[in-house]
Structure formats: C-alpha cells, structure tokens
C-alpha cells in the first residue's frame, strides 16, 4: 500500500454532490504533503461523461465504475468496488463524505478490510506520515482525535466543513474504467424506488443557510414566515426537537443531538431557547443569529448576533431587509 488517497466522489442522478469536491480538496491537501496521488472514484450508471471534470478540482486520476446495477446506491456493490480500487491503487487512506451514502458505505468497507473508520470528521491532517482525523462525539460537545493502526484508514468528512477547491478550468484528469466485477443480480438488498421528500428542498446537512424555528413559533402555520426568509437567503427551514415533537415540522428537519448535526454558513434560530441538545447540533455553524423574546435564553450565549424581540415582527422585517440587499 502507499501514500495515495482514494477519494469517493459521490454523485446522484449524474450530478456530483458538493461534498465530492470537498473530499477531493481534502485528499489533495494531504497528498500535496505526502507526495501521493489523489485518485477520485466515481460509481453510478451513466456517469462516465461527468468524471473527467474532477481533474479540475484536484484529482490526479479518476476511476469510473459505470454499470446499470450501480444506478442506485447498493452497500454490497459499492463497498466491494471501493475496497478493491483502494487495493489496486495502493491507497492507505479512503476519504468519502459523511452523507447518508458515506455513512453506510464506510463501515462496510471497514468490515471487509478489518480496518477502522473515523466518521463525520471535521479535520484531517498528516502528522509525520500518520493521518489523524478529528471528529465530534457526543454531538459536538467533545472532539476526539484518532488515528488507525491498520490500513486502509477510512475517513468520512462532514459536509460543508472542508473548503471547496478552486476549479482549474480545462484541467482534465486521466479517466480509467474500473475492472471490478459487478454482480448486480444476486443482491441481498434492492432499492425499489427513491421517493423525494414532500418539500423537495435541499437537505439540512447540505444547506449553507438554515432558518430554524422552535417552540416560540407557536404553531405549524407560522413556519411560513421562516420559509419566506429561507427562500430569500437560498436556505432551508429547520426545527428544534420541541417543534418536531409537537408535529409542526417533519422529523427530517430536526436539528440537534437526536436530529441532524449541521454546519451551515449562517444559522438563524427563531424562538429557540437553546437546550443543550439543540446547541450540540448547530454550534459548529459559521455564524449564528438568535431571535428570541427572552434575553436570558441560552441561545444568546452561542449566537454571534442576537435580537431580543418578538420573532413575528423581527423575522418579516429581516426578510424585507435581506431582499433589499439581494436585489441591490
């Protein structure tokens, strides 16, 4: 094995996720120091055409596994390809996004190879040739630094945390076809269909702006004002546990220790007091704004900016003010 890094570039429906570029950028950052190659791996159906562009984001080489059986994510098939390609390409480290796909794929790869995973990492560094990953545990109340005594060390990266590499226009990487055999007809788990969520909006973990509401929203109908603000900011609406448990918002929108842990550029907490479980889920946001009637609410202790006041007046005013900025 060797210094190379295999970077799993996640795509869905023939489009790369933003996290694919983040993963390649993080891999390149390390191989620049160790002298290894960054090898991107693309798995899917009808994906050969999009693979070359990964060169512009820092991939030295791109491997493509393109097959009808790979159209939907299959843990069995995908893990086999990842493991085999890591072996063939002498990669001691495998990076992938900590997405729903990566969080299922990484442990399978580790079980096949007998190695270790650092899941949902927020930093990866090379220290004298050993790769060290930093990951939040206890929903971010604590950070842990780990390394692996076995290879390949599999590290999944939290979306939105690692910088997007700058695109070097016109720089294409060599694209190779994967020769790992794909026996799609003997699968133990078959994806029958993919159902889009009712809102059809971007997932919280991928959003760069989140406008969240809590108990202070008073009812499901009032979330409309958060939708309006989120729309002008190009973001999505989240909710605290109490708003989800009250049935005001779907569970997929919950932010917190028993919901999603998010890292957007901007997190606006409206009518959320800031229970420790909620803070754990959003405190790694780049910028936090809190709007709450109660000046003593714990949310103000983690917020970068706070407005003390009635969210039913402040939020619509904020929407109007942001509109002015966006249109100017």
């Amino acid at each position, binding site marked *: 094995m060797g210094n190379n890094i295999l970077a799993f570039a996640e795509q869905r429906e023939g489009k790369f996720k933003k996290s694919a570029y983040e993963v390649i950028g993080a891999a390149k950052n390390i191989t620049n120091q160790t002298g290894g190659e960054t090898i991107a791996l693309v798995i899917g159906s009808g994906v050969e055409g999009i693979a070359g562009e990964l060169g512009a984001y820092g991939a030295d080489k791109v491997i493509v596994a393109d097959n009808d059986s790979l159209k939907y*994510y299959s*843990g069995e098939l995908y*893990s086999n390809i990842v493991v085999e390609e890591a072996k063939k390409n002498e990669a001691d480290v495998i990076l992938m996004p900590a*997405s*729903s796909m990566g*969080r*299922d794929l*990484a*442990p*399978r790869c*580790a*079980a*096949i190879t*007998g*190695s*270790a995973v*650092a*899941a949902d990492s927020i930093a990866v560094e090379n220290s004298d040739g050993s790769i060290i990953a930093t*990951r939040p*545990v*206890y*929903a971010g*109340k*604590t*950070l*842990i*630094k*780990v*390394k692996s005594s076995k290879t390949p060390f599999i590290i999944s990266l939290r979306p939105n945390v690692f910088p997007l590499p700058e695109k070097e226009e016109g720089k294409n990487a060599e694209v190779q076809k994967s020769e790992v055999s794909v026996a799609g007809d003997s699968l*133990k*788990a078959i994806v*029958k269909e*993919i*159902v889009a*969520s009712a809102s059809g*909006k971007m997932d919280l973990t991928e959003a760069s*702006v989140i406008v969240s509401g809590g108990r202070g929203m008073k009812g499901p109908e009032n979330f409309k004002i958060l939708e309006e603000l989120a729309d002008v900011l190009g973001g999505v609406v989240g909710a605290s546990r109490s708003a989800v448990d009250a049935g005001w918002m779907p*569970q997929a929108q*919950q932010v917190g*220790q*028993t*919901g999603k*842990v998010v890292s957007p550029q*901007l997190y606006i907490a409206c009518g959320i007091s800031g229970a*420790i479980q909620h803070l754990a889920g959003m*405190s790694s946001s780049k*910028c936090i*704004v809190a709007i709450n009637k109660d*000046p003593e609410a714990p949310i*103000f202790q*983690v*917020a*970068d*900016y*706070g*407005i*003390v*006041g*009635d969210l039913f007046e402040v939020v619509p005013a904020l929407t109007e003010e942001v509109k002015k*900025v966006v249109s100017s």
Partner: protein
Amino acid sequence: MNIVVCMKRVPDTATKIRINSDGTGIDESGIEYVINPYDEYAIEAGLQLKEKFGGEVVILTLDSSEAAPVVRNALAMGADRAVILKCDKKPVDSLSTATALAEGLKALNPDVILMGKQGVDYDNSQVGPMVGQLLGIPCVSVITKLEVSDGKAVANRQIEGGEEVVEVELPAIFTAQKGLNEPRYASLKGIMAAKKKKLDEQEAQIPEGAIEVIKMEIPPAREGGKIVGEGADAVPELVKLLQFEAKVL
C-alpha cells in the same frame, strides 16, 4: 419470529460532558445513563413485530454488569429477555463492537435484528452496516418505515432530500431513525414484570481494534453573543453586520 434488538446505554443527552484525567475519554462520574434514544425506536419496532408475528424480543448489549438497570428499562417496555455480552470497558473501535455483537447474534439465530442508527455518545453510525457485512446479511440503515411479510421486508431509508425504498430478504438488520414509530413508555405493570425477566451475562469476545485515540478535548466555547438590539428596529444593523462583519450574505 426471533427478534433481537441491539441496545447501548449512553449518557443522558442533557449531560454536560467532562474529559477524564488522561484525556482520552469522558469522566463517567455522576453520569446518568439512559437507553440510546435511537435504540428506543428499534425496541418499539421489535415489540410491534412480535405483536404481529409472535415470537420473542431479545435485548443484546455489549457492556459491563452496570448496564443491567438500563437494560431492565428495555425489558419494562416489553422485551422478553436480555443478554449482556460482558466486557469491562466498551470498545472505542466500532468494528470491535460489531464483531462482538455479531458473535452474540449468531447464537440467538434472529430473523430480524434492530438497533438505533447511531449511539449518541460516539456518533459513529457504523455498527449496523458492519454487523450486516460480518454476518453476510442485508442491512438497511437509517429507516423510517418497516414492513415485514413472508420472509421479506421493505424499509424506507432516509437519504438527503427523500427516501430510498429498499427490499430485503430476512434475516436482515435495520437501523432505526427517529420517525420510525412512537416508542411506548414502560407501564408500572411492565416495570414490575421486568424484575422477573431473564437477564443473562456472557463473556464478550472482543477483537483488538484499529482505532487509536490520541486525545479527547472540549471544543473552544463560542464567544458570547453580541446583542444587536431589540425588536424589528435592530434588523438593518443586523443585516449590515451579516454583510460586512460576518460576510455571510
């Protein structure tokens, strides 16, 4: 139907975490332990399957004897019996955990294995898919819906922006996400009955893991907030700050 629910006890989510003296784990003194919240959905799903198909629900956990009171809470919800795979210290490495659980599972010959999608302590969300891989059976992770019939199951797995509908043959593993069901509370009758239920302890077979903890630390606290002002009047100033100071607009 043989249903096994893998359970973990974790610090209550309201717990403030402190680091232990050697800096590689948490200080466990004074911590109150609960059933991992996601495992409660798994237990409920197991109980519902038993109500429909008969059989028994067995709780399996990898822990020290100190886990017994928390395991009894799962029995009080309605599980039939429990097995503690005994170890002095829970492994940090999820593959070690998964290997020990897989060994314990083999002896129980389950048709359906359920567990939470992740433990809210180490937040790895790895054990389910690992056990599936080790036992050579399908695993559907992060499910919000489960229908079992005729040796098959269809589960909805949460993904970004929607759900995958996945069909598997049993035996299979499912890891539960919030939304799968509404876990029941233990009734007083259930709590009394749980005291008499069988709780076995067996020595766990834990292989050495590959993960080495270098250090655990508390992340730096965020600087206390700047109150921009009160009410809607403060909005123009806030937008200016977001634009020019935080540069997020």
